[in-house]
C-alpha cells in the first residue's frame, strides 16, 4: 500500500496499535512514545481522528469500559489502518537501515 502517512497520522495509528483508545489516551500515549516531543493539541488531535475515520484507517468502536465518561469515544484500527501502519513502519525501517549503513554516527 502506497499511502504516505503524515507524521500525526502515523503517531495516532501507532498509539492505536496497542489497543482501542479514546482521544485523551491517544494524546498521552503519543506524548510518552515521543518522550514529550510530539504534543497533539486537542483540536489537531480530533482533526486528525476525523481525517483518519474519513480515510477508513480507523473506526469508532462500540466496546468501552463500563464506568467511563459517556462523552468519550473509543477508536480502533481497521484492517486498512493496520496495513497502512505496517507499510509505513517498514518504509521507515528501510530508511533507517540505509542511513545506518551509510552514515557512521
Amino acid at each position, binding site marked *: 500500500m502506497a499511502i504516505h502517512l503524515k507524521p500525526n497520522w502515523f503517531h495516532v495509528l501507532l498509539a492505536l496499535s496497542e489497543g482501542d483508545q479514546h482521544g485523551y489516551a491517544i494524546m498521552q500515549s503519543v506524548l510518552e512514545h515521543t518522550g514529550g516531543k510530539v504534543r497533539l493539541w486537542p483540536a489537531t488531535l480530533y482533526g486528525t481522528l*476525523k481525517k483518519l475515520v474519513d480515510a477508513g484507517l480507523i473506526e469508532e468502536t462500540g466496546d468501552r469500559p463500563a464506568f467511563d465518561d459517556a462523552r*468519550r469515544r473509543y477508536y480502533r484500527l481497521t484492517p486498512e489502518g493496520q496495513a497502512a501502519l505496517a507499510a509505513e513502519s517498514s518504509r521507515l525501517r528501510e530508511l533507517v537501515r540505509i542511513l545506518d549503513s551509510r552514515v557512521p554516527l
Partner: protein
Amino acid sequence: MSAGQAAGAAIHAYRWLARGFPEEFQRAHGNELVALSEDLIQHVAARQGWRGFLPFVAGMFGDLIMRLIAELSAEFWLNVKYALRTLRKSPGFAAVSILSLGMGIGMGTSVYSQLESTVFREVPRVAEPKGLVRFQRPAGYPDYEDYRDHSGQFATLAAYLAPVPFVVNWGAGPERAWGHLVTADYFATLGVAPYLGRLIGPEDKPGGLPVAVLSHRYWRDKLGARRDIAGSSIRINGQAVTVIGVGPPDFLGASPMMAAADLFLPTSIQTRVAPELGSGALTDRRVAAFQLFGRLRPGVKVSEAENALDTMARNLEQQRNDPGKDHKGRRVTLLPGGRLIPVRDEDLPTVTAFPAILVGLMLWIASANVATMLLARALARRKEIAVRLAIGAGRGRILRQLLTESMLLAIAGGAVGLLFAYWSNSTTEWFRPIIPNYMDLQLRISWTAAGVTFLLSALTGILFGLAPALAATRSDIASALKSGGATRGFRWFSTRNILVLQQVAGSLALLLMTGFIILGFQRTANVDVGFDTSNLYTMSLDPVRDGYSAEQARDFFDKLPAKVREIDGIVAATLTQSAPLNLFGGQSIVATKQDFLDEAAGTRVKPTRIEHVGSGYFETIGIPLVAGRGFQTPDERGEARVVVVNENMARNFWPNTTAVGQTVDLQGKRYEVVGVARNVRSTFVIDEGANGAYLPVAQSAYATPSAQGVTLMVRSRPGIDVITAVRRLVSSQDANVTVFHADSIENQVRNLLLLVKITTVLYGAIGLFGLLLAAIGLAGVTAYAVVQRTKEIGIRMALGARRLDVVRLVMREGTWMVAVGTVFGFAAAYALVQTASTYLSALSQVLQTSMTDPLLLIGAPLLLAGLALAACYWPARRSTRIDPLAALREE
C-alpha cells in the same frame, strides 16, 4: 485572579470558539474536544499555576484557531465546488445574474470614473488648486490690469489668451499647434515648476527677445525629448523664438479641458509672432478676450471678492460711458479655477444628478433582477434543501452553501463589471478624431467606485440569497418534501411581486430617460444638411502666421482661388471665413447673435447667425439661390454693402414682399439684400427656422485671419485627390505656407454623426439593458409561479379547462404587474426628472425633444409592456403542456 479563575474564563472562550466548527465536525467530535480541553485546562491550572498555565493556554488556543481555519476553508472549497456545479446546471440563471450584476457594476464604475476624471478632477500639476478662482467671462486687458492692481482682492491675478493657434517649425516643416499667450504671473499664480529651463516670468518684458515655453508632451512627442532644448531656437509663426523651458509632465495650461496648450508665449511678445495681440488686444477695453484667474488675498471670501469686483466693473463701465452700462445682471462671476471643469460646489449636484440617476436606476434594476431570480430559485429549491436537512446537513452549513453561491455570482459579476468599465473607458478614444486640441484624460478605473458598486451588488446577492435560504431552512421539512414548495394564492405584497413591480417601474423610468436622449440625437442627425456633401473639400490657410505681411497675404489670397480652379478636375473653389457643419473647431462659424431691427415694423426680431463668406461660396457649396445673386469679386472689396439672406430670414423680415432690394441694419451698418439662399444646416445643433445672413469677406480680413485661418472650399469631380493637389499647388507657390485642417465634408459629416451614433448606442444599450432585465425578471417569476401551480393547473385541465383558459390564467398576473408597474414607472420617472430638471432642460434645448414627447410617453410603456408580456407568454405556453395525470400523481 487565580489561575483557577482564569481557567474558567479560558474554558468559556474555548467553548465559544469551538462552536465555529462546521456542523459535521461538531457532531463527530465537538463534545469530546470541548470535554478534553476543559479537563486539560483545569488540570494544568491546578497543577502548574500561572507559570505553566499561560503558555499552555496559548498553545491550546493557537491549535484551536489553526484547526478552525483549516476546517472552515475545507468546507468553503467544498461549497465552492458544489455551487459551481449547481450554477452549471442552470446556465441561463447564472449568465443573466452575472451579466446584470456586471452591467450594473460596470456602468456604475465607469460613469463614476468618468466623473472623477472630469468633473471632480483638478487641473493637473497646479499647486493648491482649491485656492484658484477664475472669472466666468473673459475681460479686456486694461480691465485685467485694473482688477489686478486696484481691486485689492487678489494676492495674485493672471490672464491669458486661449486657444491661440501657432505655426511651429523646428526644422521639419511647418505644423500647427495650440497655445496660450500668458501674462508674466501666469505660471507663478498656478504654482507650476519647470521640468527643464525656466518658465515665463516678470523678466520677459516687452521689447525683449521672443521666448516660448513648451508643454512636456509637445517636447517629448515633437522635439524628441531633447534635454538641451532650453536656449535653442524654433520658428513660431515664421519668427525665430527662443525656447526657454519645458513645463512639467501632464501640464497643459490653466484650462486643459477647454483649451489644452502645447506652447506658452508671453503677452509681451511682438505682434509679428502673435498677431492676436495686435489690433488693440492689449489696450482696448472692449476687446474682452482674456481669461482671468488668480488667488484671493488670505481671508477674502469668494462671495465678497465677487461683489467687490462686480461693483468695480460697474464703476468702470460708468466712467468710460460704456453702451451696456445700464444693463442689469452680474458683470463678474467667480468660478473655482483649480477644477478641470469650472463647476461651483453648489452646482455639482446639477452636473452629476442625471448620470447618478441613470446609474442608480441601472444598479437598482440589476440588483432587483438578481434578487427576484434568487428568490424564485430558492423557492424552487425548497425540496432540495429539505432533502439535505432531512439527511442531516446542518442549517448553518446550508446557509453558508447558499451564501457561497450568491458570493460567486457577485464576484463573477464584479469581474464582468470591471471588464465592462475598462471597455467603456476606452470608448472616450472614439471622440479623439473630432476634438482638435485634445487633452488625454487618461481615464482610470475609480477603485472606490468599483468597490462601492461591487459591495452594493454583493450585499444584494447576500441579502436575497440568504433571506429565502433562512425561510427554507426554517420550514417544516415534511411538508416541503411532499409538495416541493408551498402553493399559495396570488398575493400583491409578496416580496417577489414587489420586486418585479419596482423592476418594471425602474425599467420604464430608465427607458423614458434614455429614450429622451436617443430620440433627440436621432432627430438632430436626421435633419437634411441642405446641400450635396460629396466631392466637397475644406482646407485652411493662414499665411500671416506663416510669416506673411498683410499685403503679402492679400496678394496670395487674391490669386489662390483662380489657381485652384485651374487644377484638372476641380469644378469650383472659394475662400471663406465660415463653413457649414462644424463641430468644435476647424473653420469656425462667426456666430454673432445680432438683433436685427426691422425698421418698417419697428420691432426687434430673432437673433441671426452671420457668416462671412467669399465670392463663389454658394456655387461651390451648392446652396441654390432662390432669388437674386451671390457674391462677386467687387463685393469682397467692400464697394457696396451687400448681404445675402436665407429663406427663413426673408420670410421673417419681409413676409409680404420680395427680400431682394430691401435694406437691413447689421452690426450698426446698413446693407442691401442682393440674394436669398436656401436654408442649410450650419451647426451641430439644429437651427431650423433660424435667421441666417451671409456677408462678403472683406479683403482686410485676410490680413488678420481668425484663429481658424481662412478656409478654402473646393468642389471637384469624383475620384480626384483634391487635398494632395491643393497642397502641391500651395507649396509650389511658397513652401512656408501651411495647409491645415484638410478634410472632406463627407468626413466631417461622418464625424458629426459618430457623436450621434456613440450616444445612441450607449444610451440605447442602457435602455435595452433595463428592458431585457425587466422582461427576464417577469418571465422568471411567471415561470416559477407556473411550477408552483402545476397541481392547480393540472386539476383545472383535468376538469376541462382549455389551453387558452390556462394561458389566460397565467398571463393575468403578469399583465397586472406590468400595468401597475407602468403607473409606478411614470411616477418614478416624473420624480427623477424633477431632480435632474436643470440638466434636462438644457438638454431639451439642444436636442429639441421634450420629456413629454408623445412618442416617448406612449412608445416606451408600449415597448416595455409588449416585451414583458411576451416574456410572460413563454412560461404560460409551457404551462399548457402540463400533463394533468402527471401533475396529480406527483403528490
